């Protein structure tokens, strides 16, 4: 399964990665990779470690050469261009600030590398530092900065050269949770204001959903789905995407009957109806997002014994008893008391909210 959105050849894309393949020591990690980004878009490459997201990022940046395929940016074929001629800035996970230079010298580096006279770098460097609120730190050595400050400097250093594309490799992973969320909001509005096209690489689905217009979910060197966050969450194209993005109830099922687009399925806990186009008799995987499940009767209703009731503050999560490999989750808003482990309750949800995937026998 690849990109679900049909793309006509007439569409002009800002970044066009086409047919890219890469092997390491004879092992194919990526082949026939197509990936397109529009101007001004903030896109995430989301996936578990080893899915190829960093490889794709490095190929786009020119830090790694593709075995096959092409990379076109703004109409210019950069496939064979070395990294330093691409005008693509990278913010690394470790920030990779130069330890022998001060904050201001780090930010000036890209300008100096392009032959700008030292005196002419002062104004743009000051502006870039102001943008990331690091003006007071201009003359500090890098070692004297905290993680969040280092990240700001890395962003200023990447932006000051006016890149055609900004790549960010797990830029928030070294920050603690609270700071991470602040930085995400800050960075997102900074990039939006300046109309920068950016690609984030991340394994954190919340981060990807928070910062991007579209997310490419990667698995084993392929893009499983490339869509906006809400589509990705509400209509995951594959069980992998469904599992990787958010939590779900998941039940093994078998199709018993089909009436147009409506399937009747049998699960270990009872019958369920769902929209889909599988043949009767075929094996299926059923999924529902936990916040779409409520206590009481619904279009689909299962009687479930509670295994655990987790009060999480803003929500309460019910875990139902399910056969091996299955999972039943119900998320209720706010703090709910009066529900106890071992109690049997009815859980209901709408037919339209039920996701069905065919399973190879």
């Amino acid at each position: 399964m690849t990109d679900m959105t049909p793309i006509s050849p007439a569409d002009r894309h800002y970044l066009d990665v086409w047919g890219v393949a890469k092997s390491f020591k004879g092992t194919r990690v990526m082949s026939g990779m197509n990936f397109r980004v529009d101007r001004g878009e903030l896109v995430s490459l989301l996936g578990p470690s080893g899915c190829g997201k960093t490889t794709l990022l490095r190929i786009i940046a020119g830090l790694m050469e593709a075995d096959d395929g092409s990379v076109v940016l703004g109409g210019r074929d950069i496939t064979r261009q070395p990294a330093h001629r691409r005008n693509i800035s990278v913010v690394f996970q470790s920030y990779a600030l130069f330890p022998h230079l001060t904050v201001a010298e780090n930010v000036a580096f890209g300008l100096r590398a392009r032959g700008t006279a030292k005196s002419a770098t002062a104004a743009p460097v000051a502006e870039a530092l102001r943008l990331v609120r690091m003006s007071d730190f201009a003359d500090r050595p890098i070692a004297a900065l905290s993680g969040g400050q280092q990240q700001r400097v890395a962003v200023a250093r990447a932006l000051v050269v006016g890149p055609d594309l900004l790549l960010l490799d797990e830029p928030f992973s070294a920050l603690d949770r609270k700071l991470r969320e602040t930085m995400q909001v800050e960075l997102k509005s900074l990039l939006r204001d300046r109309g920068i096209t950016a690609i984030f690489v991340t394994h954190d689905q919340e981060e990807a959903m928070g910062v991007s217009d579209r997310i490419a979910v990667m698995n084993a060197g392929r893009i499983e789905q490339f869509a906006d966050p809400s589509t990705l969450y509400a209509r995951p194209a594959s069980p992998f995407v469904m599992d990787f993005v958010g939590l779900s109830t998941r039940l093994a099922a078998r199709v018993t009957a089909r009436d147009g687009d409506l399937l009747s399925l049998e699960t270990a806990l009872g019958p369920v109806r769902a929209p889909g186009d599988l043949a009767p008799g075929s094996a299926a995987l059923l999924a529902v997002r936990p916040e779409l499940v409520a206590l009481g009767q619904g279009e689909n209703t299962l009687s479930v014994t509670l295994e655990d009731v987790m009060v999480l503050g803003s929500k309460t999560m019910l875990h139902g008893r399910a056969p091996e490999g299955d999972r039943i989750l119900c998320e209720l808003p706010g703090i709910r008391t009066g529900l106890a482990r071992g109690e049997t309750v009815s859980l209901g949800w709408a037919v339209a909210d039920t996701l069905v995937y065919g399973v190879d026998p």
Partner: protein
Amino acid sequence: MTARVDRIALLAVPGLAYLAVVYALPLLLLLAKSVRTPDGLSLAEYGAFFADDYNMGVLARTLRVAALTTLLALLIAYPTAFAMARARGPWLTVFLVAMVLPMSLGVVVKAFAWSILFRANGFLNTALQGLGIITEPMRMLFTETALVVGAANVFLPFMVLPIYAVVRQMDSRLPEAAASLGASPWFRFFHVTLPLTLPGVVAGSAFTFSMAISMYVIPSLIVGERQQTLSMLIARSFLYLRNEPLGSTISAVLLAIAILVVVSSSVLARRLGARQ
């Protein structure tokens, strides 16, 4: 408040005691000989040493050979250290063994091996003549060039290992970050790689230089008596001339140079390190 001695610091006592008895004490006795004359304490020996053109020539040769040896070792060691830092698994072992094994061979064995290589009817001359590049055998043994080449070979590990240690610690993302910021390979080298590896270069050069100014066996075997170095002059003063004040004086000069090199290089290394 009573002054308390850090008990861990006491672990240094055996080492310090050993150095005091085996290194500092004899050295002091030696230095004392250089300023003790029948007429009391005097710097006359130093005045005589520095006034002598022959001695000055030896001093200049010693410094020149040491500097050229350091430079040659650095030129060979710097790229080698990067290759080593890049090497993985068995290749790294090959590199490290290749570095360490020759050290255990002993200078005498190596020097005789070189003489087979460099002598008039040796391998190099025969090969060059065979290729028609030269017609007459070239004089290679007993030249300063042979000395520098040989000495650089002996001291190479002491140049490679400190640089290797620094290169291995360097974040490989830094040159990549520089490239993504538009820096050409040359700009990356001179503004990122070189400044970051300079502490290793300074340490390796200090090691090599201080060993090269005091080398004795290598010049004795390669160039012989005709082109003396300070160490050979010291040995001759003590062993043949029986002139202990002269030998002690040259020893003091040599020691002063070595101390100057070690101190200034560690100051330099600290300053480079402080920026990082």
